């Protein structure tokens, strides 16, 4: 088994279940989009892979298998050698995720030398090369620069360089374009696609459009669970879960007159989930059987719903 497998993953914050029973498979060379509202648990899910959960949150059940290695069996102390080498993370906010008092080149060189046996001069050259590969002009000058001297888009390119410089097997991109101008977003997504080589990748986003653009498959999360997972085209044209359909209907689109239909109500807070399907209170198709948690079924197009569309 290669690539990434998440099996029956549970994450708790104290006594509350934040993420429940998540199962995902991302083969090498493919990008999985993980889509959902704020608070759906998508960031938690991916951050649990390199053991970067916020304090107080723990994986309480399940397995994370990357390249045949079960990461849930490793302690926190055993993780640093894997981070930056086997697993690369691209963060959301380029304005805060680069150390403001360090030069860009130094930050890169630090990550490079940690996992490759290079002399300082070689590491420096490798850093400049990495900056060049992410499309930054005048890479040598950029290496000497500080983060505040660059625009958001440029900083995010640095973030991508940092995550990918050691050719990881898994790339986690946590909302990499949310903080950027729309004109820049597409370029960043293109860059990720180009530089990830044959790694497996997960793109976390609340922007269905971005997911559709970059990903092979999309998984939709709601209130801590995966409710649907399918190839992109399938999901967008023939959504089976009512929540996915509502998300698609709610997205504003150019050329369409009138307000998009927003979904009435709010997702439940993690401590106050209803029995059974968490979306039922807001679902137009809810029925008495929805008070029991629906199983996650399907072959290529999976859904967790008692009364799916189609």
């Amino acid at each position, binding site marked *: 088994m290669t690539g990434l497998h998440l099996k029956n993953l549970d994450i708790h914050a104290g006594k509350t279940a934040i993420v429940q029973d998540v199962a995902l498979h991302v083969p090498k060379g493919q990008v999985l989009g993980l889509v959902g509202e704020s608070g759906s648990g998508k960031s938690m899910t991916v951050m649990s892979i*390199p053991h*970067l959960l916020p304090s107080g949150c723990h994986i309480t059940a399940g397995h994370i298998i990357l390249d045949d290695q079960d990461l849930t069996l490793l302690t926190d102390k055993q993780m*640093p*050698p*894997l*981070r*930056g*080498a086997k*697993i*690369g*993370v691209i*963060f959301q*906010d380029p304005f*805060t*995720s*680069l*150390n*403001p*008092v*360090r030069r860009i080149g130094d*930050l890169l060189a*630090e*990550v490079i030398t*940690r*996992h490759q046996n290079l002399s300082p001069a070689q590491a420096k050259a490798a850093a400049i090369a990495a900056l060049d590969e992410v499309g930054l002009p005048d890479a040598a*000058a*950029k290496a000497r*620069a*500080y983060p*505040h*001297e*660059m625009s958001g888009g440029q900083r995010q390119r640095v*973030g991508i360089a*940092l*995550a990918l410089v050691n050719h990881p097997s898994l790339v986690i991109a946590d909302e990499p374009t949310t903080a950027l101008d729309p004109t820049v977003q597409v370029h960043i997504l293109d860059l990720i696609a180009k530089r990830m080589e044959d790694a497996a990748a997960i793109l976390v986003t609340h922007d269905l459009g971005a997911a559709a653009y970059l990903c092979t498959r999309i998984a939709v999360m709601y209130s801590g669970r995966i409710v649907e997972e399918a190839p992109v085209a399938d999901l967008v044209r023939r959504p089976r879960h009512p929540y996915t359909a509502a998300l698609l209907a709610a997205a504003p689109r150019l050329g369409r007159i009138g307000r998009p239909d927003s979904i009435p109500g709010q997702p439940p807070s993690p401590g106050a989930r209803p029995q059974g399907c968490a979306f039922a209170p807001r679902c137009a198709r809810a029925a008495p059987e929805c008070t029991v948690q629906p199983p996650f079924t399907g072959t290529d197009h999976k859904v967790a719903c008692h009364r799916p569309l189609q």
Partner: protein
Amino acid sequence: MTAILTIIAKRAGELILLLIGLSTLLFLLLRATGDPATAIAGADADEEALTAIRAEYGFDLPLSVQLGRNLVRLSQGDFGASLASQQPALEAVLTAIPATLLLAALAMLLTIIIAIPAGAWIGHSPDRKPQRAAALLVYVMQGTPGFAVALVLVQVFAVSLGWVPAIGFSGPASWILPAVSLSLFLAPKLTRVVAANVGAARGEDYVRAARAGGATETEVLFRHILPNALLGAVALIGSQFAFLIGGVVVIETIFAWPGLGRLLVQSTLNLDFPVVQAAALTVAVLVYAVNALTDLAFIALDPRLRRKTAA
């Protein structure tokens, strides 16, 4: 280049205005305090002697004229002579400066050595029991008046145990208690600031990103958290050092330390204006310089404050 020169010129101008203002205020204040002629001659000098003294020193001239003459002499670097000892006032001050600077430097060094590691240790894991106990200790120490602590220290280490001399300025052994007393006074605040900065930095995105790049906890602390956390500490260190230069009077009194503070008190009590002026102006210049240096240090250390290079 011209930008830097303009800044220096502005600052220098400010300083000169400040010194003129200080000198004038001091003159008026000391005059209001008492009659310098009596201070020189003694309380029961006769009228003849007083008149002679006033003529000799120019105390009988109108105040504005005396002020003016003083300012003119100052601009030429002439601080006059002590009314009490006839020694050049500036000399008395220059003799006292090394003692105060030594004490200030030692105290500051000790404070930094204690407070930064302690603050980093507390700030890194603020919720563990040992760190919480330490934070409480720091809190209590901050509320304890420095001179009381100094006295207790003298009692224990100098009088009871006899390990170090209690007063005076002799060899390095005599430096210990005054410096330790001062740093015990300053360290709690610096520790709290460092702990707070480290605590804040821990939650920052770039720390998480550093971990994601494979940094171990030690690497995260030393290469990422501390450089940012210590920036804030620099401001406090600068202001504490400036405070030390001007504010060590009580410690100097307790330990009979021949520094500027004691000189100021003595000369004020003697209404010895030239020495008071020389000492006060010197302190003002030193404090001003320390503040300016602190500002410069900030600019040097925080890349965000520098002029943007073409990128």
